[in-house]
């Protein structure tokens, strides 16, 4: 069985001041962007990333304040410290953007992702997938005699690890939501 290969997560960085602004090493950062939920606002944010050549590793968006029509966009992106600073400044000047938070430098954040895994297997492999699902606290949300659909929540690294384990057991399909994140404490 493959060992749990948990990559260095975006929350495990040192404090902002300790980072070398001239570093050429790309880092993963989780940004929370609070926007007015107006037409085209997501296109503006995505267009900024594609137009200026920035990476998007993960993106989630939903309205979080129905009365105030505010949406929260969580973007996991990758770049050198200079590029990350530039991304934040560029996001900040989009007119309907209210706030940009770099959760990676603002202190450790809670990051969660939800995923659905369809595993098609019989016999020993089927039993093994169920056993592993239990260890990962994944729920069975659909079941036939040849398949399961597991629902799992956790950090992207945990979900990656679960996917690695399910692959040899008959992993047929995956749906992931992308990262939702909040800063810890007040």
């Amino acid at each position: 069985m493959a060992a749990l290969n948990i990559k260095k997560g975006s929350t495990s960085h040192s404090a902002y001041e300790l980072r070398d602004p001239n570093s050429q090493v790309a880092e993963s950062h989780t940004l929370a962007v609070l926007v007015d939920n107006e037409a085209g606002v997501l296109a503006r944010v995505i267009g900024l990333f594609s137009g200026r050549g920035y990476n998007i590793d993960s993106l989630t968006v939903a309205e979080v304040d129905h009365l105030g029509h505010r949406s929260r966009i969580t973007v996991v992106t990758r770049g050198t410290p200079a590029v990350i600073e530039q991304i934040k400044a560029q996001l900040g000047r989009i007119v309907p953007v209210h706030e940009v938070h770099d959760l990676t430098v603002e202190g450790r954040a809670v990051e969660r992702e939800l995923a659905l895994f369809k595993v098609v297997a019989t016999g020993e492999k089927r039993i093994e997938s169920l056993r592993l699902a239990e260890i990962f606290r994944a729920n069975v949300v659909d079941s036939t005699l040849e398949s399961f659909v597991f629902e799992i929540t956790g950090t992207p690294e945990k979900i990656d690890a679960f996917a690695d384990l399910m692959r040899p057991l008959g992993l047929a399909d995956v749906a992931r939501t992308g990262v939702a994140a909040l800063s810890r404490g007040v």
Partner: protein
Amino acid sequence: MSQSMTGAAMVVKALKDHGVEVVFGYPGGAVLPIYDEIFQQNEIIHVLVRHEQGAVHAAEGYARSTGKPGVVIVTSGPGATNAVTGLTDALLDSIPLVVLSGQVPTFMIGTDGFQEADTVGITRPCTKHNWLVKDTDQLAETIHRGFHVATSGRPGPVLIDIPKDVQFATGTYVGPKTVRVESYQPKVKGDIAAITRLAELIETAERPVFYTGGGVINSGPGASQLLRELVDATGFPITSTLMGLGAYPASGKNWLGMLGMHGLYEANLAMHGCDLMINLGARFDDRITGRLADFSPRSTKVHVDIDASSINKVIRVDLPILGDVGHVLEDLLKVWKSRGRRLNKPGLAKWWGQIEGWKAKKCLDYKNSSSVIKPQYALERLEALTKSRDRYICTEVGQHQMWAAQYMGFEAPNRWMTSGGLGTMGYGLPASIGVQMAHPEALVINVAGDASFLMNMQEMGTAVQFRLPVKQFILNNERLGMVRQWQQLLHGERYSQSWSEALPDFVKLAEAFGAKGIRCSDPAKLDAAIAEMLAYDGPVIFDCMVEKHENCFPMIPSGKAHNEMLMGDAATEGAIQAGGAVLV
């Protein structure tokens, strides 16, 4: 005060409430209700252009020469797509524009209707912000927001897309005072601790230089006034980008001339050798910096900018100050004065000695001729014969643009209209129309090249229709001069597609439009021909036949540093290495 009216009436009412006097536009099916309202009033003058790109550039010229936003009305589909180049130009040069486009009715959006285009989608990356208005009750507020966003912070173009049914429907008009954009609050005051730190740096600097840009012009005439006060009080040398010319007068004793790829030797070497660089409203554009690794290697860099995304974008600076240049200069002067106006005078005297040595190189010298008009000579004469006038200069893009920046002097802000960031050929003629609309009594000259002029020459019709006496001064070398120069320097003199085989007769072209045409090819007759152009009360196309293969120098080749300039008499063979050829 709220009133009930149609969307089309709201458009005109809102423009009046914002003090708009002139709009540039072109009618079409999706804006007919707005044009019907324009027809029934006399306060706003509508300038009918010949192509929507011309409307946007004209509005840019109007905006740049007045400090007020330029307003454009275009129809849906091709009307809007034709405006895209102008919007991108205005975005890169931070020009405030409000563009109103028609759209197919809301119930037809998405059906590929006649003259339907996804205008907000197409213009999203080339506007500061844009809106599609689906409800007449939202229209007035959206237009007011548009004016606010276009003119505040770092200015830029906005577009408001108005479906035809929204123009016909009746809604409630609200006045401009009720509108606030909560998520958009640009910071104008700089951090006072950072400003104090800058004052300290000024006190001790041995080899300082001011590097100013279009942000000083955009900040308003007050910023230029404060800049002059600060430069004169400190005695520091000052250079400027193409976009910032005129903020400090060309006749000022501390003026080094423009910097950058075709900037002056003394300006570029001062940037390279300085120990304190004070960037006011410029953005370290690649035409300015040359090779980044060797850009001003020993200086402490200070950057004042209203746009946080301009700071540390290409050059990492030591002291960023986020704020409006005018406000920061005001605070800086106060702080520096209250600390006793200290300066490092011995250091400065030595620095100026070094700069005088660079000036003695006379980098703008060129070999004149008695048989053919040198483009540099043509502009020197144009400068000499017009500099005492109430004068505005526009340009197209290319060699003539760089020569105009080098050989003409700008004494005041808002007098120089050029396409800097985007480098849009075809900008100058429509821009001159916009400037002349704003300043009917002034002398407005567009310094053009033969190729650029042809890109929007249809706007001569606009100039004639509106009796705008704009002077089109074409430096005609029958070449795409800058392209030809690069092919000579970088591509083994293989002049691929860079000459104009079938140019029109510009004198006859002028006459065909109902304007005056003048041609001159003899240096001895140039002054008289320019005098004839100036004396004529109406639009003129001046066909100035110049040396065909003149190169624009000095030049920092692509991929080189500021201290590796090519001068006019330098051997150019092999001056640019293969690495430079991939750059633009």
